């Protein structure tokens, strides 16, 4: 899930070439196309009037959304379309941020946390009007666990040993270890697919289903798919929560962030997640509503643990004390975010440890920690230990102007305390390869977080699949394992609070900030709950357009 947002945020702001400067000027021209002083929206866009039926909402995606099969695709554009095409066992409650019923009416777990039983709705039909049953849920999870499908979701369910359709509308999962986050992660990731259309097929080559006519149980069904252009969906009359208010949805493929913004301004789009630098262009325009969310996401620096420099906790602490993160947030993201204090974002209210406070910017403390660790400053001001210079590379991918700017600012701040930091900008695939092969030194990353803290295990347990920094800490390993398997909610909370304290003190990553998601919608578009991009799309049956 790391860096899964691939929306091609590109606006030149750094050391610019002539071409980049012109691109930035073009972006600025769009941003300046509007004027000042917006009553900065906030709050739900529900309005007070009663919903009306009709209209087609036009929404952007960033890439071709194929394959539209939830078992084999992890691409954001595909996910956004799939959110209203398929249904999930659960979905996220906008207020409590906890899972609430969707395809599952109720669920229960055995006292030992090893057996989960989901009772399903009996009034659900597929878009081809075939009935939905427990066999479809069983089939979906079996396909996720089938190694030849190489599903990105498989690692979430490796402890699942048995999946049974008890009766037509009851499904039971048996696990070898407790997985208390099952209702959350199944709601976030697993769109249920139709057994009657996919049974016996190789999912990766089921081209017709994956790319042309996927069938789901969601509020909107596919009408047409025009490669390179758009995906058209129509309301499904027999949707189990009632026919959606909108007649349909058009997903327009618009890879360029400036082109997306121009389309929004030309009222060819009704929804867009904008960049902080685009705020100026939206302010004062009464045709749009701006809503800001503290999304469960963070932008941070991953040190490669185990290297001579970063294996020393004092050096890692110096990396945090020496970084003026508020200045970075203000300059790179125009202040749209909050400083990161722990590994679990504040958006996960139940799990975040609010007792922790952000590390202060304290260059003197950073210098003293480095001195203490034996990295002393030479005549040039740069530090070394036993002839080894304190020198490292900050790697950053070129797709995000914000992260590129963070790299430049951090480089200067680290040089000020005697760390000889350089910057390595690489394209996305090289960046991903560096992460997987752990060939970076200090890496700037962005990670959306799930709504349950269990995700932490994969990122920070020793040898975890997504532990890119090769972090290892026996105390952390113990807490992560116990957190995932603890059945009692209050005890789980306590374990995760302790985990955050340990990781905070150990500086497992160099804290950055939690970006604020900036959603701009047409003022005519109503009925959207207060949820970030990925989750608000599961409520598209409640969206409506004012006449």
């Amino acid at each position, binding site marked *: 899930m790391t860096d899964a947002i691939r929306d091609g945020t590109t606006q030149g702001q750094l050391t610019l070439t002539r071409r980049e400067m012109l*691109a930035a000027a073009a972006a600025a021209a769009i941003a300046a*196309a509007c004027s000042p002083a917006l009553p900065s929206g906030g709050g739900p866009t529900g309005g007070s009037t009663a919903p009306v039926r009709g209209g087609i909402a036009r929404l952007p995606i960033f890439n071709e959304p194929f394959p539209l099969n939830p078992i*084999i695709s992890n691409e954001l554009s595909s996910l956004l379309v799939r959110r209203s095409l398929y249904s999930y066992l659960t979905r996220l409650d906008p207020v409590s941020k906890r899972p609430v019923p969707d395809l599952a009416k109720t669920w229960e777990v055995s006292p030992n946390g090893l057996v989960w039983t989901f009772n399903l709705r009996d009034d659900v039909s597929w878009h081809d009007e075939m009935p939905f049953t427990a066999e479809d849920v069983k089939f979906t999870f079996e396909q996720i666990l089938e190694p030849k499908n190489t599903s*990105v979701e498989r690692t979430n369910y490796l402890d699942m040993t048995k999946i049974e359709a008890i009766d037509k509308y009851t499904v039971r999962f048996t696990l070898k270890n407790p997985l208390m986050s099952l209702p959350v992660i199944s709601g976030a990731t697993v769109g249920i697919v139709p057994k009657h259309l996919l049974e016996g097929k190789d999912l990766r080559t089921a081209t017709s289903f994956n790319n042309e006519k996927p069938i789901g149980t969601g509020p909107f069904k596919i009408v047409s798919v025009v490669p390179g*252009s758009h995906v058209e969906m129509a309301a499904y009359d027999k949707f189990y929560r009632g026919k959606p208010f909108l007649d349909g949805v058009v997903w327009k493929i618009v890879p360029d962030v400036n*082109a997306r913004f*121009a389309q929004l301004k030309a009222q060819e789009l009704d929804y867009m997640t904008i960049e902080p630098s685009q705020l100026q262009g939206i302010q004062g325009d009464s045709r749009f509503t701006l809503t800001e969310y503290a999304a469960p996401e963070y932008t941070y620096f991953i040190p490669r643990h185990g290297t001579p420099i970063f294996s020393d906790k004092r050096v890692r602490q110096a990396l945090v004390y020496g970084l003026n993160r508020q200045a970075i947030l203000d300059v790179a993201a125009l202040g749209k975010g909050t400083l990161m204090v722990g590994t679990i974002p504040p958006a996960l209210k139940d799990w975040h440890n609010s007792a922790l406070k952000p590390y202060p910017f304290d260059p003197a403390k950073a210098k003293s920690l480095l001195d203490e660790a034996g990295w002393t400053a030479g005549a040039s001001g740069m530090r070394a230990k036993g002839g080894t210079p304190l020198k490292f590379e900050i790697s950053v991918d070129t797709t995000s102007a914000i992260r590129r700017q963070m790299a430049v600012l951090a480089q200067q701040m680290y040089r000020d305390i005697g760390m000889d930091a350089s910057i390595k900008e690489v394209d996305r*695939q090289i960046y991903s390869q560096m992460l997987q092969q752990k060939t970076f030194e200090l890496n700037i990353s962005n990670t959306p977080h799930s709504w349950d803290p269990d995700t932490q295990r994969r990122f920070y347990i020793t040898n975890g699949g997504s532990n890119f920094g090769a972090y290892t800490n026996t105390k952390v390993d113990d807490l992560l394992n116990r957190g995932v398997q603890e059945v009692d909610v209050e005890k789980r909370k306590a374990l995760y609070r302790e985990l955050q304290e340990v990781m905070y003190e150990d500086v497992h990553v160099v804290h950055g900030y939690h970006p604020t998601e900036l959603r701009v919608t047409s003022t005519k578009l109503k009925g959207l709950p207060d949820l970030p991009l990925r989750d608000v799309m599961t409520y598209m049956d409640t969206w409506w357009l004012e006449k």
Partner: protein
Amino acid sequence: MLVVVTATFLLVHLAPGGPAILLDPALDPADAEILRTRLGLDRPLIEQYWRWLADVVRLDFGSSFTFDRPVIGLILERLPATMLLGGVSLLFALAIAFPLGIISAKYRSSWIDQLSSMVTLAGISIPNFWLGIVLILIFSVYLGVLPSSGMSTPGRPVSVVDVAQHLFMPALVLGLATMASIAKYTRSSVLGVLKQDYVRTARAKGLKERLVLTRHALKNALIPVVTVIGLWLPRMVGGAVVTETIFSWPGMGRLAISAAFQRDYPIILGVTLVVSTVVVFTNLLVDLVYGYLDPRIRLD
């Protein structure tokens, strides 16, 4: 052509990074290996190359890593949009460039020549991503008279008028640089021909200036211009990456650039093969046109 595709094959496989589908951080390393095997990327490079070449001979360009679909289908889906955009922009460019170049040469150093120079200089110099955004601002955001992107309005039946409205701005952006380039070549070529002895002879015979231009000068002046047009023609197939991206035009350029970012080898190779084929045939066509325009070339 074989050299081009072989070089491309080597470059894409040896470039740092790798297929995005294998580098998804959410993918378990063991599953990534299964996928690598399935895609045939675990085999020696030379074996991958021979297999790919053998398939290409049978017109099988393989399947896209990203879409799990045959590359030939992906290319054929996007080819009409790219050819429409490229063709219209080239026609637009030719329709303006020829008269502009000829008039500039005929009235050399006059105000009309200077104006033409300014227009062509601007056409060559203005980056198309900047011009595209400015046109969108003017025609879509402020005036609201033209759609800013796509090839047709989603949800409505496709009509000629609708497509023409969508086509106007991208064709203008793409055609402007082509027009400027061809106009400049036409001007200098016509100027060169007008100084030739046979033109002086034609004038001495008392032919009207219009006839001197059309019968004697223009055909010979076309030779370097045809070369330039020949260079632009492959774009009609290869697509214009920047213009297609700005205007969300569903063409080959976007397919190619997206494949490059995703390291989708089969698409990169398929597009390269198609474009290099067009380049070879365009060069052949240009050579044939040379012979028509100047029979001496045929004798050579």
